[in-house]
């Protein structure tokens, strides 16, 4: 029950003033500007764009600055801004095969057309704090080498040719945009993928990890992981001409999962798919694993009653803005609610006492 109560206005205003001051920090230290954030904290910026579901680096950097680096708060700001934007339209489906790759690896095949390219990765670093970064501005320059500018084919397309892996064929089912329509379970895979792509990285990581540890038989290989820029094509309504309206960085993961076969399908490999804005490979891999575990029905697998198989559980809880909104609202005044509970407990205790005296 909510009853409006007046008061606290001055306290709130003063709290906001202090928030503003503490956000600035020590004034003897130079203020962060948005470009510094978008250029130097790129992976935070990517995460806020991905989970904020809006690709705009400057806005993401602004949100990070405004939220004092609290990324969920920053994602909240992005989502709120996103809702104010008129929707101009929908792009053509992107072609990740034409990606301008910064990174492209496969954990399933060593020798692949287009080769393994590590890109700017933390993998193989020793995870030791680098005290050189405490000092000023030294950095190594990237090395360059001559290249062939050829399209890099998807690794799983080779398995496809042998029929060893399940094919991804359009179902023809129409999917709703979950940001425009309330979701109704069961969902289409497209609706699940949209939710996962904007879902919380930590939540998806935990669920994906649970599938690896045995909660859903789902041993996954990373068939391919690629990060790079993709041209987004959009038809200009006035002209009927399709143009490259935006260049967007994506990370894509295709997982390969062993599958012993079922009544419906002979033994073959199956797939999970992850596609997210930015260079967020932990999230792309997590997404692929969770996508796969939720496809049990499609492949005629057994339902083991685990969280990662339960689309209603996963999709209802993977959105960190919904989650934090409901969670954090309980710190707001619930005085009347609680008063009612207090009265109830007192009444029950009185009755208990009376009964005790009687016996």
């Amino acid at each position, binding site marked *: 029950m909510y009853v409006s109560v007046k008061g606290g206005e001055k306290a709130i205003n003063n709290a906001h003033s202090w928030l503003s001051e503490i956000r600035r920090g020590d004034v003897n230290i130079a203020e962060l500007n948005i470009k510094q954030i978008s250029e130097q904290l790129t992976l935070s910026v990517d995460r806020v764009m991905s989970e904020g*579901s*809006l690709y705009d680096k400057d806005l993401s950097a602004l949100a990070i600055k405004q939220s004092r680096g609290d990324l969920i708060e920053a994602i909240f700001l992005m989502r709120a801004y996103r809702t104010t934007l008129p929707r*101009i339209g929908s792009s053509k*489906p992107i072609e990740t095969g034409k990606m301008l790759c910064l990174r492209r690896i496969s954990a399933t095949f060593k020798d692949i057309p287009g080769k393994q390219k590590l890109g700017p990765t933390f993998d193989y670093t020793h995870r030791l704090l680098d005290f050189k970064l405490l000092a000023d501005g030294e950095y190594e320059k990237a090395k360059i080498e001559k290249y062939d500018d050829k399209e890099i084919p998807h690794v799983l397309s080779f398995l496809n040719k042998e029929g060893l892996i399940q094919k*991804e064929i359009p179902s023809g089912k129409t999917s709703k945009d979950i940001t425009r329509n309330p979701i109704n379970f069961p969902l*289409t895979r497209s609706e699940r993928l949209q939710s996962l792509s904007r879902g919380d990285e930590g939540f998806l990581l935990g669920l994906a990890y649970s599938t690896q540890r045995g909660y859903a038989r789902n041993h996954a290989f990373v068939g391919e992981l690629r990060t790079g820029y993709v041209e987004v094509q959009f038809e200009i309504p006035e002209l009927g001409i399709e143009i490259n309206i935006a260049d967007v960085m994506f990370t894509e993961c295709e997982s390969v999962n062993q599958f012993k076969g079922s009544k419906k399908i002979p033994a073959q490999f199956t797939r999970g*798919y992850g596609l997210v804005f930015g260079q967020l490979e932990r999230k792309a891999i997590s997404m692929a694993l969770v996508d796969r575990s939720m496809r049990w029905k499609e492949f005629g697998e057994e339902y083991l009653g685990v969280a990662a198989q339960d689309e209603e559980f996963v999709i209802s809880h993977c959105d960190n803005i919904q989650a934090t909104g409901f969670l954090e609202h309980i710190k707001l005044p619930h005085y009347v609610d609680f008063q009612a509970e207090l009265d109830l407990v007192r009444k029950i205790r009185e009755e208990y006492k009376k009964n005790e005296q009687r016996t």
Partner: protein
Amino acid sequence: MKNESRKQWLSYLSTADENYLISLWDNLNMKIEYNWLREPEIGSVMVQGKAGVTGDNFNVGEVTITRCSLSLDKKIQGHGYVQGRNKYKSKIAALCDALMQTEKKEIIKRNIIDKLIKYKNNKRNEILSKTEATKVDFFTLVRGEDK
């Protein structure tokens, strides 16, 4: 005017680095008379992916877009659909689109479109050459028993 070439210049204008495009335009110092058909507005386009590369379409998320339309006279219209939230960039794109349909075409092509193409190609080459340098060359160690 062929759609193919218009598609090309609109694409380079849309994805241009905004500061670079603005500096190219401002350097031209052109005074162009125009009327708004649609003043610059900020919106979004929903980006679609494909499940498992070849399956069903799905919505990945939105990207910010600014658009405007203007006319130089009754016949010639320019449309400025650009990535990001810069209204001036959108207006420049619309003006360039319009001027590419006039006798000023060569000036715009030489001083703006060609430079945007070069800029983007350079960026692409930079990424490709850095990525190439991180290519893994596998080799197998020779084992003793083969001697």
